[in-house]
């Protein structure tokens, strides 16, 4: 197996023809984890959250074509900025981690126009800065972000005994509290009860969105008074108590197990080897939840540069890998966004708070596989000056079978040859 190819395919978006492979793949991976994950300045200017919100509000009150277009431009420019960053990046591992954590703490553009324009901001500001930091910081940033408070409807949750609750006869919304426990942190394996969910929901009352989506706001008047007990922990009234409990959840051994299993499953195999999971879990435990430490162990497992690619590339990764393979410049990032729509994984739009599914079975439906062939054929038509044989050597190296190489050589046109390469079983995996 070619270690350099595996490094780029398992932990990135695949090689790019004409770009030399890393001479020392292990070091190349480790070096990325020393970088600042925040995007370099000078990219496309992206709107502040409140600007986005104003636009959406304007659309609501004056549904003119112009505001419609402004909202569409905003969502498109966020998406294209993300995709062009992925195409141009020197640190694909970081982009893969950003995608992983964005999906772990998922918000969805399907939740409406505000959610659609806020998702990019959420990924940039709540997820990306923390992918090599501490999980508790990422969790807190995610839960405080308007996109999450809106998506999991906590902004409207009101303590029944709070001044606002008594006045308006409205009450708790358990949505966010339940998903934090079930999906983001300890999982049902930790053995919490319905009353833990209810009490945690009370803890989170008052965690809301500032007017005009200017950011997070704690609304004391909506916060359920008094201390609460969740999973045996006493949680004092107020914002600080809630933040401290989130940190406790983030450091919980069941959370570390959950995160470790998901990470290994995402990068290695649908059913991960328990021994590998234990190593990542130990890194999280020993460092108090350092995601950078977890990532360092993840990429230095003995299987990292030796096990054959066993995961199905979801449409996200397929689109980016294919665009890199045909040498698409970052300006053509829009093609990746179109591909994700066409292959049923639109950007930042998972169908549920659980995020996109992450096993092969979810992406290998009969029509889904043929849709990949069709999309690939269309892409190959746009890049029909690519040298398909050279591209095959560059992007797969020895991971490509002789039979594939033969079919590429026998194809009747460059377009057909590229389609065969990019639709091959080898190229569907990472």
């Amino acid at each position: 197996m070619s270690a350099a190819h595996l490094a780029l395919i398992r932990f990135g978006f695949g090689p790019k023809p004409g770009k030399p492979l890393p001479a020392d793949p292990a070091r190349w991976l480790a070096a990325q984890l020393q970088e600042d994950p925040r995007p370099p300045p000078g990219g496309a200017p992206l709107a502040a959250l409140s600007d986005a919100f104003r636009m959406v509000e304007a659309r609501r009150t004056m549904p003119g074509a112009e505001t419609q277009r402004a909202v569409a431009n905003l969502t498109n420019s966020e998406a294209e900025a993300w995709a062009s960053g992925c195409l141009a990046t020197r640190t694909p591992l970081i982009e893969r981690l950003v995608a992983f954590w964005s999906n772990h703490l998922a918000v969805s553009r399907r939740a409406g126009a505000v959610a659609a324009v806020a998702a990019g901001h959420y990924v940039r500001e709540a997820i990306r800065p923390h992918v090599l930091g501490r999980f508790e910081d990422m969790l807190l940033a995610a839960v405080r972000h308007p996109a999450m408070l809106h998506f999991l409807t906590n902004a409207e949750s009101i303590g029944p005994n709070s001044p606002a609750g008594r006045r308006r006869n409205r009450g708790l919304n358990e949505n966010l509290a339940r998903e934090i426990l079930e999906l983001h942190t300890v999982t049902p394996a930790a053995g919490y009860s319905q009353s833990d969910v209810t009490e945690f929901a009370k803890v989170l009352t008052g965690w809301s969105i500032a007017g005009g989506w200017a950011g997070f706001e704690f609304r004391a008047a909506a916060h359920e008074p008094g201390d609460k007990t969740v999973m045996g922990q006493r949680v004092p009234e107020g914002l600080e108590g809630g933040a401290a409990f989130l940190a406790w959840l983030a450091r919980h051994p069941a959370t570390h197990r959950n995160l470790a299993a998901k990470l290994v499953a995402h990068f290695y195999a649908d059913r991960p080897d328990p021994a590998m999971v234990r190593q990542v879990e130990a890194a999280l435990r020993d460092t108090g939840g350092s995601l950078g430490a977890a990532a360092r162990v993840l990429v230095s497992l003995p299987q990292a540069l030796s096990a054959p690619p066993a995961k199905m590339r979801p449409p996200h990764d397929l689109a980016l890998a294919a665009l890199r393979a045909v040498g698409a410049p970052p300006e053509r990032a829009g093609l990746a966004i179109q591909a994700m729509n066409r292959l049923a994984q639109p950007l930042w739009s998972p169908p549920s708070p659980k995020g996109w599914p992450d096993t092969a079975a979810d992406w290998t439906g009969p029509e889904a596989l043929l849709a990949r062939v069709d999309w690939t054929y269309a892409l190959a038509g746009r890049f029909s000056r690519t040298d398909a044989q050279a591209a095959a050597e560059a992007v797969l190296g020895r991971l490509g079978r002789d039979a594939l190489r033969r079919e590429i050589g026998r194809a009747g046109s460059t377009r057909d040859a590229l389609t065969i390469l990019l639709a091959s079983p080898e190229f569907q995996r990472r």
Partner: protein
Amino acid sequence: MTTSHLPAIGRRGLLLGLAAVATLANARLALGQAPGDPRLVVILLRGALDGLDAVVPYGDPAMAALRGDFPPPEPGREGGLLDLGGFYGLHPAMAGLHALYAANEAAIVHAVAGPYRTRSHFEAQDLMEAGAEQRLASGWLNRALGALPPRRNGTPRSGLAVGLDVPLLLRGPTPVGAYAQAPETDAPGELVERIRALYQGDALLSRPFEEGVRGRLFAAGQIGRDAARQGGFAALAGIAGRLLAAADGPRVAALELGGWDTHNNQKARLPPVLRQLDAGFVALKEGLGPAWSRTAVLAITEFGRTARVNGTAGTDHGTAGVAFLAGGAIRGGRVIADWPGVGEAQLHQNRDLAATRDLRAIAKALLRDHLRLPNNAVAAAFPGSDTVRPEGGLLRG
């Protein structure tokens, strides 16, 4: 998807200044009075068309020994060839072209090849498009465009690439317009078949892939999905015709059609592609309207195929084949060939139809006698071809 009868201009088209064409196409009916600039359409048949099956020299006594009952029956028999004057017969899938031939608006060039003798698709296509014996960074049609009179500011480019990408044929120093068709078509069935073979034995993916292919075949049987696909090329050709028809529209267009690489099961695989090409000729004529009388269409392929049928009822990469000419400007109704014969001793390397004509002679004649380019421009389009004289008498008038 556009619902209008007007062509949809892709984003790239707009960027390249084609917007004017869409509005001008409105005035198509007024084009009768438009000045008579010539139009040239080049169709690239990628994958190597078997000329001996598309235009069968049924009058050659060696054919029976060579191919037996592989080609369609002789003219007059059921499903038989469409006669081209007693020696050659056109494949029955090309009734539209045959009608043009009968109206003296189409001609066949046979036993023709480029100057190269490689049997690699990629290399040969590059050389065919470069118009030279070595690879070049620009195409002959692009270099020819450079010699066309300059256009007024704001009018579309003279050249138009119809499809998703600009082929080498039209790449080079002279900017051309590009038109991206929407919606895109599915991958062709024979390509899916090749990919399907690569999935066989894949524990995870082979079953769903097989099911997907079966589902498609069923859908094709039910709703004629393949028929819809075949409309793809004809629709594109029709759009090209309308764009070329516009008074201020482009004058030169390139289209591409793949699917000719019939290594196996040729009897089943070739007719659908021939039908697409045939429908494309008809659609071009319709789209061009009155401008058809000032149009020449040239369809060429990178090389022909082996004279003998191979072990899988197909043919392999060969040498000479056919080129098609159509359009009101063409002096049609004839087959242009110095027939080399297909007897054993007459085949090139005892294998392929021998080339007795150079494709460049045909292309050069179109540049000189149809687009009326000066000799130095024709020479720049086909460097190193001084000894290849333009084919005389290709055009009317």
